[in-house]
C-alpha cells in the first residue's frame, strides 16, 4: 500500500539540477538580454518548480487526480492574472473622455 519509492540517486540528481539552475538564473540576470531577461528567469523558475513537483513531491508517480489538482490550481491562477491584465493593459487603448478637472487628474491618474 505504500507509494512509489523514488531512489536516492534521483533525489540527489534533482537536487544538483536545481543547484545548477539556481546558478544559471542568477548568472543570466547579470547579462543584458533586453526584453528576454524576465522570460528567461521565469522559464528557469518553471523548470525548477516542475522538478520539485514531479520528483520531490512524487507527482510523476501519483494518480491522475493529483495531477489534475495541481494543473487546476495553476490554471485558475493564470485566469486571475490573464483577465486582470486584459483590463490593465488595454485601459489606455481607447481615447478617454477628459476628466472634469483635467489638471487634478494628471497627478492622480494611476498611469
Amino acid at each position, binding site marked *: 500500500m505504500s507509494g512509489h519509492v523514488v531512489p536516492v540517486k534521483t533525489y540527489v540528481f534533482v537536487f544538483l539540477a536545481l543547484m545548477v539552475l539556481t546558478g544559471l538564473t542568477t548568472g543570466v540576470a547579470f547579462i543584458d538580454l533586453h526584453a528576454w531577461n524576465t522570460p528567461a528567469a521565469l522559464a528557469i523558475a518553471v523548470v525548477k518548480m516542475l522538478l520539485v513537483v514531479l520528483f520531490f513531491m512524487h507527482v510523476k508517480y501519483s494518480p491522475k*487526480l493529483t495531477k489534475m489538482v495541481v494543473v*487546476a*490550481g495553476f490554471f*485558475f491562477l493564470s*485566469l*486571475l492574472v490573464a*483577465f*486582470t491584465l*486584459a*483590463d*490593465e*493593459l*488595454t*485601459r489606455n*487603448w*481607447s481615447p478617454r473622455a477628459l476628466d472634469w478637472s483635467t489638471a487634478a487628474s494628471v497627478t*492622480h*491618474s*494611476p498611469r
Partner: protein
Amino acid sequence: MSTTVIAEIPGHERPSVERVNYLNVDHSVKSWLLTHDHKRIALLYLISITLMFFVGGFFAVLMRLNLIEPTGLVAPETYNKLFTMHGVIMVFFFLVPSIPATLGNFLVPMMIGARDLAFPRINLLSWYIYILGAAFTLYAVISGGVDTGWTFYTPYSSSFSHTSVIPTAVGVFITGFSSILTGLNFIVTIHKMRAPGLTWFRLPLFIWAMYATSVIFILGTPVIAITLFLLGLERLLHIGIFDPAIGGDPILFQHMFWFYSHPAVYIMILPGMGVMSELITAFSRKRIFGYTFVAFSSLAIAIISFLVWGHHMFVTGQSVYAGLIFSVLSFLVAIPSAIKVFNWTATLYKGSISYEAPMLYALGFIGLFTMGGLTGLFLASLATDVHLNGTYFIVAHFHYIMVGGAVMAYLGGLHFWWPKITGRLYPDAWARFAALVIFVGFNLTFFPQFVLGYLGMPRRYAVYPGEFQVLNVMSSAGASILGVGYLIPLIYFIWSFKYGPLAGPNPWGAKGLEWTTPSPPPTENFEEVPIVTEQAYNYAGTSESAHG
C-alpha cells in the same frame, strides 16, 4: 427529549423510540462542543447561521423602516452602516455557509454511504473558525459598525472610512478559512469515500452541486483572503497599493475582490440548485430529466463563474475591451443555468406531483430564480448596465437570486430533510402557509425595486425623491410580511424538535441512501456499508432504462 414525551405521541414508527441515535447518544454540552460527528456539526452550524440570519435580517428591517419616508428616519451615516452590516452578515455569514455547512455537512456522507466526512476534526475546526470570524464581525457591529458596503471598495475603505473596517475584514478573512476547510473536506470525501457501486453518475445531483461549490471554495476563497489582507495593510500603513494618489490602482482591488465574490454568488446558488434537483424528483416521483446535463452544468457554472467577474466593473474605468470579453462570458453562464431550469421543468412534465411544503419552495425557486437570472442578462449587457448599475434594479436582481433562489432552496431543503435530521415532523399546514407568506412577501418586497431601479433610484442612499415613495412603501410592507414568513418556520421547527410526531425513516417515500437509515440516524449513519446498484432517483422502479 425525554422518552416519556415520545411515548405519548402517536408516532407512525414506534420501534425507533428507544433507539440510540446521534442526538441522544450523549447529552452533555462537551459532547456537542467537541463532537466529530458531521451531523452534530451540521446542527451547530444550523444554530449559528440561523442566529446570523436574524441579525442580518434585523438590519434589513431597519433599512426598510428608514425608506418608508423620503427624508429617511435615521442619519445617512447610520444608514450606510445598516446596509453594510446587512450585506456583510448575510453574504459571508449566512448565504455562503448556509446550505453547504448545514445540509451539506449532514447529507454528503449520508448520500454517499459513508460513516463521516474524511476529516471530522477539520470539520469541527471549520465551525470554530466560523464562530471566531463571526465574533470579530459582531465586535465590529458593536464597536460602531462599518459603512463601506459589503464590497469594501477602495480607496474609500482604505483611506477615508472612519469605521471598523479592519475588525470586519478580519472577521471575513477568518471565516473564509472555514469555507475552505469545508470545501476541502467535501472534495476529498466525495472522491474517496463513496460506497461500493456508487459511481459518479449514480450520485445524487446534490452531491455534484456540493462538489462544484467546493471547487469554488478552494480556488476562490484564498484570493478574497489575500485581498482583504492587502486592504488591511494599506489601511494601516498607507503604502499606496490601492491609493491612486500614490500610484496604486483601486480598480485592482475590485478585480481581486470579484475574482472571489462573483464565484461566491455561485457558492450561494449552486447548493440551492442541488437541493432543487432532489426536491423536484422526490415530489414529482420521476427520474430527473437529463441527469448528465444537470450534473455537468454544475461544474460548468463553477468554472465559468471564474471568468465573468468584470461584469461588476463595467462603469469603473475598466478597459472597454476587457468589458466586452467579460460581457460575452457572462452571457455564457446563462446556458448551464437555463439547462437546469429547463430540465427541472421537464422533470415535472407528466410527473405525479404533490404539493408538500418543500415542493412549494422548489416551485417558488424555479420562478424566482428564472426572473433573477433573466434580469441578470440586462446587467451583463454593457449598454443597459450603464443605466442600471448602482440602482435598485441590481438590488432586486441579486435578491431574486440570493433570497428568491438560495434562501428558498435552503428552506425547501430544510423542510425536506428536517424529518431526517430530527426524526420528527413539523405541522405541514403551517409549513405550506409559511411558504406562501414568504413567496408573497418576497415578491412584494423586491418586485417594486426592479421598477424603482429602472426609474433611476440609486441604491445605498438614505433619502430619495418623493415620487418614489409609493413603491418604497410597497417594498417595506412586503419586507414585514417576509419577516413574519421567516419567523413562522423558526417557531414550528423549534416546536417540532421536541413535540413533533415521529417521522420514520422515509416520510416522503424519497429515493437516496440517506432515506434508508433510521431517523434520526445513528452516529455511524449506516449499520452496514450500503451497496449501490441503481441510478439516482429511480422512482419508476428498477426496470427503467438508464437514460432520462
